[in-house]
């Protein structure tokens, strides 16, 4: 693109220096915290972290909720994206705007709205009591369900956006062609839509999984200290216990899980494709 490679390098250099000095270096220092002991270098901090049953619970809860949010948003996302892509051009833009609207609202405001909706006197409970489905209001807030709902709402738009753009890149008539060749909708999905939108699913899945795992505000407000996630635990360790070693371990776990999720999803995508 540039006649001279030097110009290209000169253009990325400021950003590269900025990222290295202000991001990679501190991250490196933080992460190395967990490996430093009084006597030298060791991985014992990880063993100690996982020895605690509370930490184990938090770890597996985070993994479970993030996977669940990613999985459910994939299912809901495919349906929504397919519907949006097939709308007439005029309403497609409007619907897409509506779906992405939550992304433009502060996560704090959005999460507080859930407090109102899911609380003891919120309208979910009012509805259930009025219909006689339950006598006493259910406890939804400060449960995993509340965190799940909050995270799903927070990240579903990212999945839908990824899948919509993947579907827009499918050859226009691939789905009708499969229908005419005798495929029912399930077969159309498995044999045509899924293979042709894998990249979008990988991107969306990674964004949603990583986002859910590292979200702070939603689990903090909807889960509180009853439903700790790795991110809320990390914050608690630092502010309450001044325990930078655990914080560093958690940060490392989060980074590792994000990368693994991405690699795993990519692997899944290419494995099915080369069949």
């Amino acid at each position: 693109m540039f006649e001279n490679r030097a110009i290209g390098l000169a253009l990325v250099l400021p950003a590269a220096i900025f990222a290295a000095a202000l991001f990679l270096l501190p991250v490196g220092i933080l992460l190395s915290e967990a490996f430093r002991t009084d006597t030298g270098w060791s991985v014992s901090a990880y063993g100690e972290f996982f020895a605690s049953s509370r930490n184990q619970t938090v770890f597996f809860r985070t993994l479970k909720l993030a996977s669940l949010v990613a999985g459910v948003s994939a299912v809901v996302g495919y349906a929504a994206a397919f519907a949006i892509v097939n709308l007439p051009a005029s309403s497609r833009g409007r619907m897409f705007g509506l779906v992405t609207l939550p992304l433009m609202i502060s996560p704090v405001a959005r999460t507080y709205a859930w407090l109102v909706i899911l609380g003891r006197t919120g309208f979910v409970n009012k509805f259930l009591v009025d219909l006689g489905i339950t006598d006493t209001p259910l406890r939804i807030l400060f449960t995993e369900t509340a965190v799940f709902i909050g995270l799903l709402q927070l990240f579903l738009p990212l999945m839908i956006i990824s899948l919509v753009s993947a579907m827009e890149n499918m050859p226009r008539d691939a789905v009708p062609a499969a229908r005419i060749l005798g495929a029912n909708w399930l077969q159309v999905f498995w044999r045509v839509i899924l293979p042709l939108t894998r990249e979008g699913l990988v991107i969306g899945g990674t964004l949603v999984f990583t986002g859910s795992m590292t979200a702070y505000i939603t689990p903090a407000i909807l889960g509180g200290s009853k439903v700790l996630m790795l991110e809320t635990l990390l914050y608690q360790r630092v502010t309450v216990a001044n325990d930078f070693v655990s914080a560093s371990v958690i940060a490392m776990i989060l980074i590792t899980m994000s990368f693994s999720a991405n690699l795993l999803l990519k692997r899944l995508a290419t494995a099915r494709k080369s069949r």
Partner: protein
Amino acid sequence: MSDPATSQYVSLKDLTLAYDKTVAVDRLNLDIHKGELIALLGPSGCGKTTTMRAIAGLLTPRSGSVHIDGRDVTRVPPSRREVGLVFQSYALFPHLSVFENVAFGLRLRREPDLKAKVMEGLQTVGLTEFLDRQPADLSGGQQQRVSLARSLVMHPKVLLLDEPLSNLDARLRLEMRTELQRVQRETGITMVFVTHDQAEALALADRIVLMRNGAIEQIGTAEEIYNAPVSGFAADFMGFETILPGEAGGGLAWRPGAVVLGKGPHQGQVRGASFAGERREYVLESPFGTIKADVPISETRFEIGQQVAFDLPRESAVELARID
């Protein structure tokens, strides 16, 4: 052809098709005979593709019905209509090899002898060496053949082809034309193809359905429509360049070759002249409007700006029932 089982093999009855707000096809009636090669001809946007999509079941009619082989299929989904459709965009599955593209429908049906049937299909279109290729590595003409083979191996009751030749270059287009004719003759399959090219329809089709604004303007054999267009629109589409009003709302139409230049009762000024091999084409400005004429290259040559006498002989005109 009076037996409805063959004369109404595919039958569209009062078919009205609409998108959102636009009505694309308005109360269309059409009977397609078993084993015929029929062309839907008309300018872009007149509803040809929409009609095809309705026959295939990709679009639910707003009203009216579609019948195939004696059965009302209006509510039958495309997967169970036994119709083939070769899309204008070919619509191959980019993630599957040529072989797998052709095998797609057969696999869904769990047909025995899959490999033999796919190879037979590829043989029909002359692409047996390409079975391991990905669609992206094929030329447009080859993709088209794969798409054709993919439909043919299913032995559909009707094969629909949407502008099968318009994305090909001139040489390939002629080649595919004969190919389609050969396939149709060999298989005896009922074929409907869409085109906006008058010459293509005339060369290929047993019958031509001329469409205009979502309705049928005229149906007939190539000769019928070519020699006796019913309206100004039909005449214009069939290459009549000079169309003048006649008596009682009717009209008269002349092909460029029917206009006499150099003598006659009318005067016109030459606005354009171009060489076209055996003939020379002229555009005249006259009291009747613009006249297009072509004369053999051996005749007197006229220059741009020159006043020329011309005649529109009544006996070489075609009478139109309607001028519009």
